[in-house]
């Protein structure tokens, strides 16, 4: 039980300390999806 709590606390600490990094990675993915959406729009205009 103590081990589990310790593991959870350690993981929580890691999540907290790396939260900005996780946000930055998320921002990149959002930008990539927006890029994909604009590609679909451009392709649609080009084809029709």
């Amino acid at each position, binding site marked *: 039980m103590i081990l589990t709590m310790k593991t959870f606390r350690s*993981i929580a600490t*890691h999540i907290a300390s790396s939260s900005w990094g996780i946000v930055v990675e998320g921002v990149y993915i959002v930008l990539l999806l927006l890029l994909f959406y604009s*590609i*679909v729009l451009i392709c*649609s205009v080009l084809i*029709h």
Partner: protein
Amino acid sequence: MISRPYPNDFRLISNQIGKVLCGISLLYSIPCVTAVACGEWDQIPDYLISFNACFIAGLIFIFFGIGATGRMRWVHSMVVAAFSWFIADPLCAMPHYLSGHFASYFDAMFDVMSGFTTTGLILILDLDHISHSLNMWRHLLTYVGGQGMIVLVLAFLVRGTAGAYMMYVGEGKDEKLLPNVIHTTRAIWIISTVYLFLGTAVLLFVLEYEGIAFPRSLLHALWLFMGAWSTGGFAPQSQSILYYHSVYVELVTLVIMILGSFNFVLHYAVWSGNPREMFKNIEIRAFTVTASLTFAILACALIRSGVYADLVTVLRRGSYLLISGHTTTGYMQVYANQIIQDWGELATVAIIVAMAFGASACSTGGGFKGLRTGIVAKGLYHEIKRIMLSEDAYFLTKFHHIKDIILTETHVKMAGLIIICYVAIHLIGALIGSLFGYPFVNALFECVSAGSNTGLSCGVTAPAMPALLKGYYIFAMWAGRLEFISLFGLIAFGISILRGK
């Protein structure tokens, strides 16, 4: 002169393989606990037999390695990495075969190699009726395989560091996050565990919202995370992601797949206060360019075919399968036959190219890798610039990967050689597939999928496929995952046994 290996060389290798196998055998505790928790008592003897077989095999190797002296050399570590993966395959296939869901032991070995190499091609029969513990075992193999089985053993089980870095390189991960390789392997596991908790929590919430009841939702969330993060592409149901009929599940797994395809060195740099690296890194730039280009081709093909009524659906279906292919995951939300039959050959070619490019170096994914693609592109740029400038002009080309690095001929040569090796295994596989009567495009699609450790299927992979093709795919998955480095080491070792003096 090539020198023949001494008995001590075999002992060194045998000792390390034994340690890896003993480490792998401990993994059996997780499906065993799952079986107890889910009341699947009939499954426990299967894991008991499999654990002991793997453990005894490890002990036999350690026994033959007793008395080994001296330091590990590169050739030793390459043989250890290559052989560990090959020997662990049949030993980890026991629960698969004992479950009765495979037509033969060879098919079970195919699935295990597919899991370990994070490929995701499957030959399992009646997947919808397998036990929770076997599902846990399948997904655990792919999760561990993503990080690397030697990385696992180095991170948690080995005390000494002698030869550790060489074995780490032999497994296809040649970059250090930290100066010490043991710390590097632990950092890889910390990153994976942090995302395991976050990803599983988000997927659990989504699956509950989409109508899957607890505790199945928790198990599915965990397995989907493992499949997506390791870019393995295993799913608990036979329809893969199509089973969930949910845009939210697709969106979350899409994000996890992309995260899993990032270089662990990049994760570490961004997490430790260097957010700009995310937008400057050569691999991310290469991935963005290749993913955008292949997606543009795919989007054009889908819009022209007119199979989807609106652009949002084109974006949803197209981007998911493309990212699944490019990150070498292999999650599918269309049926296997629909890719070539309904999306058309142009879309198929776009996905084949995306799969071949693959994920980042030192990630859980496969393929050429963004680093190599970026280096070769930079090399081309360098050559074009050299022709344009006067003959006596001296200039340098740099690329950014954590730090600015001056591009050298060795960089380009090594990247080019490995890419040639990948292309060769893809083409040989396509040729073998064609010889067995499959259309060339189908055979190429499936072999690129196996060789780049993706797992998307157009329907070639099935229990009834020829045994030779299964064998070749096992080889392609293994060689592709270890990025040929260990294969070269193994060949060198074989030659030294045969021709050494």
